[in-house]
């Protein structure tokens, strides 16, 4: 056994992140650890790597019980960890970053040539293609990850832990990463890899350990498992990927967009003449490959970006003339695409985050003073009704997992009483359980008669939720497909810029 964890328990206050977890990883295998956000995967790996000390339990590496007091001890014992957030120095070369802290020196000076040669050799051997002399600041995220892996290798790791490695990668880069992982195993190394992507786990791992709510559910050979079984173990219940049932509602038009144009940050046209209507009780989906004007469209509708031409009427007011605050007053709720930037203040508490935007209204504010008791009470109720997994409403949002942070945003936006919901990538980086809860909530809002514009790059999400799907390409709306007969081929053609014969581009 390369790694054996026995009875690992880790508590944060009253919250039990890991509850008596046993984990055995055989030498020379790719061992996936899968679970929803907040299931305790990262905590467990941080314990193994010495970043956290367990309250109970023991760690054995290669058959020897050891104390992993800090990461230095873990590295010495042959462990290496590639974190979700990279720690590279942009102005230094790839090789300098790889050897940082253990520079090769000659006559007291750093030997750049030797470092570059050694980096090149390692990168060739494991198929981690990088140019060792290039400056890191010029490179893409995918290549940065390769550098982090090289850093781990050069420190002599035999067991490599990767925390959600594919979250930042394109599908192509993910495939390359999997090949690299296989080459590690071929050399007798061991890989532990955290994920919540079923497909990846099925594709690359030999063994899967499933965690749920801080406990281990099972460890099984991947070959014996089906995707359905895996999902059941992760969420503890069945998940439907299918289209949500619905009653047809025919409400009045809430949002009317007429020939809307806008420019992106480079001053190039990003939205080109979009026209559409969203009715009460209807979910209109916007599909498209990321970067085809969806972000800019959402920003124009929420007042964050000026329109260069056209109108967008929300209940009789033209949004393009209003400030973000005035648009919200007019009846917009906005779930932004990047929740960490525009959705929450990560350092503020859940209570404060649920308050933002309505702090001047009763009953939260009385005579110009905030009534924190009322705010916390309301936040507590929202935590319950939106099933936000947290210790309490005073918790800073940054301590929550991605899915729970998104639920905080939804809890605030959906309880605003707005008639128009602008929802941008609601389940990006969110695990399946939370995904389902978020979809349920959106359907509840639809049933309550809200007009919903749902922007997503995930077709299955749109197919499950939307009544109509508009496809954006290069800033234009290429066509419309009814949600009932959403046909992947047809939408795919439009996403690639081919106009459908029946629905001419507007």
């Amino acid at each position, binding site marked *: 056994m390369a790694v054996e964890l026995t009875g690992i328990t880790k508590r944060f206050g009253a919250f039990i992140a890991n509850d008596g977890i046993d984990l055995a990883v055989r030498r020379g295998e790719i061992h996936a650890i899968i679970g929803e956000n907040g299931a305790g995967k990262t905590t467990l790996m941080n314990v193994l790597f010495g970043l956290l000390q367990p309250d109970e339990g023991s760690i054995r590496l290669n058959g020897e019980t050891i104390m992993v007091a800090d*990461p*230095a001890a873990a590295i010495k014992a042959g462990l290496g960890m590639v974190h979700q957030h990279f*720690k*590279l*120095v*942009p*102005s*230094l070369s790839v090789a*300098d970053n790889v050897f*940082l*802290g253990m*520079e090769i*020196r000659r006559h*007291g*000076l*750093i030997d*750049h040539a030797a470092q570059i040669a050694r980096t090149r050799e390692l990168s060739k051997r494991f198929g981690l293609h990088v140019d060792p002399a290039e400056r890191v600041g010029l490179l893409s995220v995918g290549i940065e990850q390769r550098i982090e892996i090289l850093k781990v290798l050069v420190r002599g790791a035999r067991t490599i832990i990767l925390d959600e490695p594919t979250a930042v990668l394109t599908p192509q880069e993910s495939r390359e990463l999997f090949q690299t992982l296989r080459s590690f195993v071929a050399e007798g190394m061991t890989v532990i890899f955290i994920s919540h992507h079923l497909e990846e786990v099925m594709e690359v791992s030999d063994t899967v350990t499933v965690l749920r709510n801080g406990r281990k559910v099972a460890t099984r050979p991947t070959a014996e498992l089906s995707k359905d079984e895996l999902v059941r173990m992760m969420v503890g219940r069945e998940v439907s990927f299918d289209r949500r049932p619905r009653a047809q509602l025919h409400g009045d038009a809430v949002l009317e967009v007429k020939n809307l144009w806008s420019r992106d940050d480079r001053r190039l046209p990003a939205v080109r003449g979009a026209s559409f209507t969203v009715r009460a009780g209807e979910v209109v989906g916007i599909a498209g490959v990321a970067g085809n004007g969806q972000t800019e469209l959402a920003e124009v509708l929420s*007042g*964050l*970006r*000026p329109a260069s031409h056209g109108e967008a009427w929300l209940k009789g007011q033209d949004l*393009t*003339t*209003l*400030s973000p605050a*005035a648009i919200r007053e007019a009846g917009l709720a906005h779930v932004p695409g990047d929740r960490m930037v525009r959705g929450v203040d990560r350092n503020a508490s859940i209570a404060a985050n649920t308050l933002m935007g309505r702090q001047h209204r009763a009953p939260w504010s009385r005579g110009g003073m905030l009534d924190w008791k009322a705010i916390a009470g309301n936040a507590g109720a929202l935590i319950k009704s939106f099933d936000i997994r947290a210790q309490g409403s005073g918790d800073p949002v940054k301590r929550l997992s991605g899915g729970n942070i998104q639920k905080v945003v939804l809890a605030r936006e959906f309880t605003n009483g707005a008639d128009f919901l602008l929802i941008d990538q609601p389940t990006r980086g969110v695990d399946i359980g939370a995904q389902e809860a978020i979809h349920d909530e959106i359907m509840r809002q639809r049933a309550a008669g809200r007009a919903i514009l749902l922007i997503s790059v995930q077709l299955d999400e749109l197919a499950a939720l939307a009544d109509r799907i508009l496809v954006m390409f290069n800033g234009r709306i290429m066509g419309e497909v009814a949600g009932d007969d959403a046909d992947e081929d047809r939408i795919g053609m439009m996403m690639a810029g081919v106009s459908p014969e029946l629905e001419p581009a507007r």
Partner: protein
Amino acid sequence: MEILDKLVNVALIAATLRTTAPILLVALGGSFTTKAGIFNIGLEGQMLAGAFFAVIGSIWTGSAFAGVACGVAAALAFALAFAVLVVTFRANEVVVGLALNILAGGMTISLMKAIFGTRGSIVGHGIVGLPKVQIPGAQALLGSWAPLISGFTPIVYVAFIAVPLLVLFYNRTRLGLYIRVVGEKPEAAEALGISITRVRYIASLLCGLLAGLAGAHLSLGYITMFTENMSSGRGFMAVAILIFSNGDPLKVLAGCLLFGFADAFSLRLQTFGFPSYLVLTVPYVVALTALFALSYRARPKIIKETLASMQKLLSVDRNSAPVDKNPQ
């Protein structure tokens, strides 16, 4: 043509090198703290303390070099105080830097009064200035161009030799690399077990060392006297150069040469009878204009955003509600 010859000649270039040296030294000192991620506005005070105590040391010991050592020690004491407050106690860099500058100004004046019973300046009293180094063979080799390499006080040579040494230091030594990492990506340093605190202390003290030398050069090399506030803004000029150069030694050198040249040139102009107050602004105006022009490309965001927002204020929006349409 004749006037131009009088204005620009070997003597002017030599004067440029002399006037460049102190600001170059203090800016190179500041490059350590800049690279380590500390905004060190206290250069001025360190330099002034260095200048004052160099004079005191020189009078007490009768040796110019012992004087320089005293000046450096005083600047180091200031640098240490800065590091303790900023690095250990996390005090605001600007507040601490300004406080130490004010302390240096006031302390030198009151000590001058206490020791010499005078205000304004210390002249005579047996101050020993630094000797000028005559490089043997310079005259034979370069003829009339010899003043370009020979006849400066030792600290001038130190200043210019320090430039390539610093380039080597940042690129090829472990400490230099760690200083850069600590400044650019502290979390990377932390993850690798590099002590941010220790690296920043070292950078602050290295800064004090060079700032002290710069001060000693002012009072023992440049001229042999101390006057109130004799650093006269060179420390702040160095800060400006550091912001624009990001502490890169070669860019620091370029900025300082520009300033030094403008300084020497303005002294020249004075002899032609231009009003001296106007002339004295020349180096600052030239240096700032040049640095601004140079940095327009390097730091486009702030400047372009400023221009863009000014443009927006001036232009009439079609809905005449530009405030509501802030793209940010």
